[in-house]
């Protein structure tokens, strides 16, 4: 019983995802009045009708009380979480007790993050985003929604099963020599060769990394690239997983079914097995829905001809931190090259028109600031003060528009609005800088987003040669890395499942599990938790491991709740276990800094983590205020011990783990 819905303020459904149970529930409620066999639109209609009163009440509350709903809970423990981003209302529902309010809120934020990575600054204009999320063409819409649904499902699966997505930090494969070799290989051989090739079509490889399932084997960034934010890296891992789902958990029926339905047109060849298992996936209760599914698939079938070229990169929008500041959502191309099942090479390139995006962002920011000042009642010169004065912008924007060329419709529109804006703001007869200018600020922003959309989101016309690394070049890159890793392939696949194991910690009797996270680099270390029947870990197999896993998962959500209220140390005696959680700060030399106040956040604040909203970056910034001129690092440690172990011993263990884990020399595993 799960659902995620995005709706516009006018209760138009911009996206929805439901699991079969929820769909069944909706259809059962609607079934009485609705004739069957109406196909996909019918379900969309019913979901929109049922949610409409909630959506409309939401906007009424915002308009008239200035307050909005954040959640509902029913007596049978169905949870509804609502969050409004600009004019898009996100509603996440759970009715099977598997997700709590925090999980649902996190899902909403992750969905928003995914949309940002896919649509970039278009998300800054609700109007454009609405059109982007709900294309007029039903086929196109179905395809887009399927893609988003699949990404969401991939994320949910990872969050429920992968520790790195539980704590939202990247996990590395612990094999120092191989990692080093690979990084060197990426740097000296691969990236160098790619960037010096003429077939790169003016693209430049900025980052290259190798994923073994969700774990990072090697990561290389070219010298002139900015750091890839953890948030973006995690989002890219979700996308890579979605394209080439790893079947690590073959004996776990859930993910298999999950992965089958919608990859057919993202994988190079539509594989027949996928389609078979799709049939298997639809449970008998949905017999009556078969026509719908068939229809949806038929429409996809038509879309698959011609199948999208696998060498076509995905456009992704990632954050760049450069000398003159932070630029969110800058366009990149993402090449996801499968090496073997479970092992993927990912290349991120800078596209040649990158600087247009940076300019658009600067202008957007300037108009947003201006709008904010004007709406706060500032007028005249007070309103125009800022890092980039409006007069600066005036000349720059003039040049920018000239460079775009007035040929096409979008830049002509921008030109018109800009002229009107100038007339009002600067001309004698104009209104000058006051509240009347606000709508024109908004209009300018929309136009800029439109330009951005046209430059980076719309595929180039059919006649153009697609802008990308040539297929041959991609193939060569793929082969190079395959050759390099050929001997290691099987080892890596096993290693990714048993990265480190508790067997390696004989000096910690009674320690069952731990997770250690370096929040400054967004990396984590934890023993593998294998819960499938086939593999036996130290935790035993099956139910016992599953039980411990569920404890670890709930511990993480508990500690987040306390952290949100300002508690950075938590110990819990729960059943037969003793849990500890510590968050602390160190400077670069490893000196432990004094614990400071941690901001207290409201219950409905953004989820604590690094994927959707980087809490720790903000925490570090907050903490660093009192540690000027020092590089501050933030660490977290979670441990699970047997309850019978004396607390002193447990705390000693924690201390040892905390001091040892990030020191390669002392860790037997590094």
């Amino acid at each position, binding site marked *: 019983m799960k659902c995620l819905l995005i709706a516009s303020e006018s209760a138009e459904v911009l996206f929805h995802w439901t699991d079969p149970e929820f769909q069944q529930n909706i259809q059962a409620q609607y079934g009485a009045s609705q004739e069957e066999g109406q196909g996909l639109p019918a379900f969309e209609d019913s979901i929109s009708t049922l949610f409409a009163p909630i959506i409309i*009440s939401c906007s009424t*509350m915002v308009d008239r*009380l200035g307050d909005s709903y954040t959640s509902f809970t029913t*007596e049978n423990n169905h949870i509804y979480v609502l969050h409004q981003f600009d004019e898009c209302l996100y509603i996440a529902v759970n009715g099977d007790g598997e997700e709590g309010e925090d999980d649902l809120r996190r899902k909403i934020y992750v969905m928003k993050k995914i949309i940002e990575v896919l649509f970039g600054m278009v998300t800054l204009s609700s109007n454009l985003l609405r059109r982007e999320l709900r294309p007029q063409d039903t086929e196109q819409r179905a395809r887009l929604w399927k893609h988003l649904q699949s990404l969401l499902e991939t994320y949910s699966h990872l969050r429920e099963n992968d520790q790195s997505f539980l704590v939202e930090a990247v996990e590395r494969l612990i094999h120092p020599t191989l990692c080093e070799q690979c990084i060197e290989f990426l740097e000296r051989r691969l990236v160098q060769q790619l960037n010096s090739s003429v077939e790169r079509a003016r693209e430049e490889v900025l980052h290259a990394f190798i994923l073994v399932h969700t774990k990072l084997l090697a990561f290389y960034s070219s010298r002139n690239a900015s750091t890839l934010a953890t948030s973006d890296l995690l989002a890219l891992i979700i996308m890579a997983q979605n394209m080439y789902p790893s079947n690590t958990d073959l004996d776990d029926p859930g993910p298999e079914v999950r992965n089958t339905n919608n990859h057919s047109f993202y994988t190079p060849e539509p594989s027949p097995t996928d389609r078979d298992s799709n049939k298997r996936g639809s449970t008998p209760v949905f017999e009556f829905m078969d026509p719908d599914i068939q229809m949806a698939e038929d429409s996809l079938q038509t879309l698959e001809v011609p199948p999208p070229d696998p060498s076509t990169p995905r456009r992704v929008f990632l954050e760049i931190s450069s000398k003159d500041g932070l630029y969110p959502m800058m366009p990149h191309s993402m090449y996801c090259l499968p090496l073997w099942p479970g092992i993927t090479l990912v290349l991120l390139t800078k596209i040649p028109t990158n600087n247009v995006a940076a300019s658009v962002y600067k202008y957007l920011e300037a108009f947003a600031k201006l709008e904010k000042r004007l709406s706060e009642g500032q007028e005249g010169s007070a309103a125009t003060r800022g890092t980039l004065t409006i007069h600066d912008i005036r000349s720059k924007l003039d040049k920018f528009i000239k460079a775009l060329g007035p040929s096409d419709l979008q830049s002509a529109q921008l030109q018109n609005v800009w002229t009107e804006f100038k007339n009002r703001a600067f001309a004698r007869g104009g209104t000058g800088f006051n509240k009347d200018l606000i709508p024109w600020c908004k209009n300018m922003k929309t136009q800029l987003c439109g330009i951005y959309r046209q430059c980076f989101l719309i595929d180039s016309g059919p006649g153009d040669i697609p802008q990308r690394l040539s297929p041959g070049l991609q193939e060569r890159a793929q082969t190079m890395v395959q050759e390099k890793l050929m001997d290691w392939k099987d080892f890596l696949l096993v290693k990714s499942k048993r990265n480190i194991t508790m067997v390696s910690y004989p000096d910690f009797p009674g320690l069952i599990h731990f997770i250690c996270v370096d929040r400054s680099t967004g990396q984590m270390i934890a023993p593998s938790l294998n819960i499938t029947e086939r593999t036996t870990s130290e935790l035993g197999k099956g139910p016992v491991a599953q039980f411990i896993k569920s404890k670890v998962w709930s511990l993480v959500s508990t500690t987040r709740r306390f952290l949100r209220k300002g508690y950075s*140390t938590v110990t819990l005696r729960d059943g037969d276990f003793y849990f500890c959680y510590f968050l602390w700060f160190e400077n670069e030399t490893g000196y432990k800094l004094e614990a400071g106040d941690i901001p207290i956040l409201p*219950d409905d604040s953004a989820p604590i983590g690094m994927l959707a909203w980087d809490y720790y970056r903000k925490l570090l910034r907050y903490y660093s205020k009192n540690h000027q001129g020092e590089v501050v690092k933030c660490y977290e440690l979670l441990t699970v011990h047997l309850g019978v172990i004396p*607390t002193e011993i447990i705390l000693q263990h924690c201390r040892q783990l905390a001091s040892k884990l990030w020191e390669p020399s002392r860790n037997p595993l590094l």
Partner: protein
Amino acid sequence: MAELIRRCSNFFLYDGSKVTGEGDPTREGICYFYPEETPIDKQELLCGQLAGVGRCVSELSSSPVRILRLRRNKYAIHMKDDFFWALGCSVEVPTVSVCELLDQLIKLFCFYNGSIRQSYQLNSRETLAARWARYLSHLQSGSSELHHIFSCLRTIDSTNVDPLLLLKAALILQACQRCPLVLAGCILFRGRVVSTQMSPELTMKVMVHESETYTKAQKPNGLSSTSSSSAAVCSTTVFLTMSELQYLQSPPVDKDLRSHSTPHKDGPLKKTRLSRTLSDMASTESDSSDPGPSQSPQKMSFSPCLSESDNSLFSPAPSQSAADPLHPPPQSPEPPFSNGKHSHEAEEEALEQSYYQSFHSNGDGDSQIHNKGDDSVFEGNSHFNGGGREGDTACGTVFDFRGGESGNEESHDDKELVGDSGRAQGQTAEVGDPPPCYGAFDNPEESPLIPMTLYLHRVKGLVLALLVEPHFLSDTASMEEVYHSSLASLNGLEAHLRTISPGAPGAQGPYIFAHFDCIQSTLTTNLSGRPGGAPEHPFVRATSLLHLHFCNTETLQEAIIRSAGAAVYGTRSVAQETYFQQHGGSLRNSGIPNHQDSAFSLPSKARHRLLKHGVNLL
């Protein structure tokens, strides 16, 4: 008042059945809205939107909405039939507490008014609005933030009170119960519980009427009517749920023993209250109707406890009590299970604790005085058993408490009595307020509400509240009996309680603690209990967070949480929750795991420090 506003920002009852057509104005459906001065269009907006969204969500999930959160407020919701209740609080208040508050409020209303639908049929909105307002202000008023977090009963500070007085109070109640029409009672002093035989829930409900009559009594223009006993006695009709009633009726009172003291008038009642033994008791316990989940622990604990004491009280055969494994031989100086107490099952612990207010033996001069969960519980009892037996043939007998002080006290009491009853003539007493609806049934599928009578006997700040069968009021003999049997003792008790200084809360000490007894719903704390006790206090904040977490995680036993400013330790068992914070000490720490960190010594410190407050965490 400021506190009141902060705690509950909105409350309303909306009747959807009044607004069905398109043209019906929303205001038709608003039965009550707090704060009443809210502009009507805002009332309509809130009621309309929340009720509308509530209905929509409950249709989607096929279950009523329980909690509705906004960014700045959270609402506990109750939906039943066409009625929609919403109680809004600021977001800092723990959700469980808000929900509890709303439930209490609704139950309180039903307790005094019967079913909602019928009350609104029989009374005007204005009348009932005044009642909602009164209940609301009662539930919110005058306690500290900690009390609100746990929704606990306000009790007198038992550490300040001579245990003998608590015993005395319990005995008064027991004596009243000898009249078969009396179901159970409690004694309250200045709005605080001295002793009660009822479940915390019921006690809490009864206290509303007490505070109400108290305020009325303060006003000179109170309506004067006198009861046959011509004292500050009043009564009102109340409505009990089936399970509450069954629970009250289940305490076994040995009819055979009582029969010669009180003539039987209640034919049908006899069936349920025939003589019982402990084994009898157990069987009826198990098959008596299912109590609400919140009530079950009380059922388990209270009733056997009563049977325990009553048996010992009235049993003519000492062998019986000696044979009882839970009941030590009457004169045994040290009950055999005193050490095992805390390892016992929770139900036994509850059993002992549930009577902590009443059983404080000081028969022998050397008895140690604990403030709760006293080991000598049954000793005290047996003293009474020995001493009081001779006098109990008639209810009217003024109890002669053994011990030095009783002689003086007696005469003193008599004087008081004269003055009292003289004054009482002019005082308020609403007797025989005709029950608004007899045998009120909310609707078929719901448990019926059974009308009973709440009888109050006030002696200045002290009130004896008894739940009695409705025809008790017409039974002059019984009334007089109850009145006279308790009057002198009440006077005495009042005089003593009055002299006790409200007392600075116990030694402050370098620590703060709060100990919540889930069974009795009582709180012991050394945090200054002034109303409005700052909710931003780190201890209160941590406690509220941990309490919520304990509520949500059944298996959680203890927790230490630390922010930059404070480390708080919380521990709980089935019967209690305890929170502890140590002041001072070096709070400078890096947050890195360190076994020398003072935060991790909190459990042992708590164990040590709290012993002297009668909190045993071992």
